[in-house]
């Protein structure tokens, strides 16, 4: 076997080597003075690392932690609360339905449920679209800032975040002004065309 690699020496000292390799290392160490010295050196080094002292904790630390503990959210409690809520809603629904069927208010109650359903559908569609739009906008801004930031970093000296922010703000303002001017011009053109 050739002389030991430093990785193997650490592996040997930390009992991380496979049995076969460990055996080879032990065999080699019997005859190689240089590797013996390296092993001894790393052994002393590892021992000095493992004897570093603990950092002191205040005596009341445990009590301090325990006194700040939030309410425990156990899965059973969460499921119980959810099941209870659903059961309440269902009961309310059944009660309203029974009252509605038994009385002359049935068509009105049915209409109310239909309206609620329609509102919920439109609202969820609207929220989804707004969310998609916001996400797209956020990603675009992020890419823009990363690109401009990376570009400016090459030219500006270190620790000039304020200057970088100013330049980025000016660039954004210019882009917004350009976009607004363009839209105003196109709407004017459209109006003239219609006239």
């Amino acid at each position, binding site marked *: 076997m050739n002389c030991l690699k430093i990785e193997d020496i650490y592996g040997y000292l930390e009992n991380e080597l496979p049995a076969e390799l460990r055996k080879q290392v032990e065999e080699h160490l019997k005859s190689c003075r240089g590797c013996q010295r390296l092993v001894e050196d790393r052994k002393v080094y590892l021992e000095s*690392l493992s004897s570093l*002292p*603990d950092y002191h904790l205040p005596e009341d*630390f445990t009590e301090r932690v*325990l006194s700040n503990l939030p309410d*425990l959210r*156990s899965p059973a409690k969460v499921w119980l609360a959810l099941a209870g809520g659903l059961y309440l809603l269902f009961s309310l629904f059944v009660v309203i339905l029974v009252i509605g069927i038994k009385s002359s208010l049935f068509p009105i109650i049915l209409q109310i449920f239909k309206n609620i359903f329609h509102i919920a559908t439109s609202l969820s569609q609207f929220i989804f679209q707004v969310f998609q739009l916001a996400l797209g906008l956020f990603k675009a801004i992020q890419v823009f800032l990363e690109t401009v930031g990376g570009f400016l970093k090459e030219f500006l000296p270190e620790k000039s975040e304020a200057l970088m922010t100013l330049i980025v703000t000016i660039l954004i303002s210019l882009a917004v002004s350009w976009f607004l001017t363009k839209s105003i011009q196109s709407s004017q053109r459209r109006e003239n065309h219609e006239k």
Partner: protein
Amino acid sequence: MVEQEDKTLVRRCLEGDKKAFEILVRKYQQPLMNYFCRMVQEREMSLDFTQEVFLRAYSALHTYNGKYQFSTWLFRIASNLLIDHWRKKKLPLVCIDASENDDDREPVQLPDHEPSVCERYERKQLVGQIEQAIKDLPENLRELFVLRHINDFSYEEIAAIKNLPVGTVKNRVFLAKEILRTRLEDR
């Protein structure tokens, strides 16, 4: 055995037994404090972080998966807390020096008998130098090094905490050790 003990304690906590959580806090507060002190080098901040880890762990105890060791789960929370901290601080990344070939170096001679006053003083100095050299390591290497040599986690456990391949962890810890050793020799 220890693992099973932790899992039993977690189960008791979820049943509302605060005493069980106290046992877990007493067991892991010192390792967490040692970890944070070496990572952020500020005592007060390390105390706050250690407390925060326990509070986060307690709030999320119902999400703990018994497949993993509790200590690994706890240190994953600690590591994420550090990542958030660094992200907020936006620390510059430090270049990693290439380790030198040490084959021809003379071994360090240390006696193995009872230490005298002089030796104790030297030992104290050595501890100070090691702490300083750990502090100077790049953050990504320092964290893996601390988990391995201060917190005594196995490479597999560190890989689970940091969500990295075991081979990568081994290489980085090895690199950290050699950088540290070289710097100690230069002092």
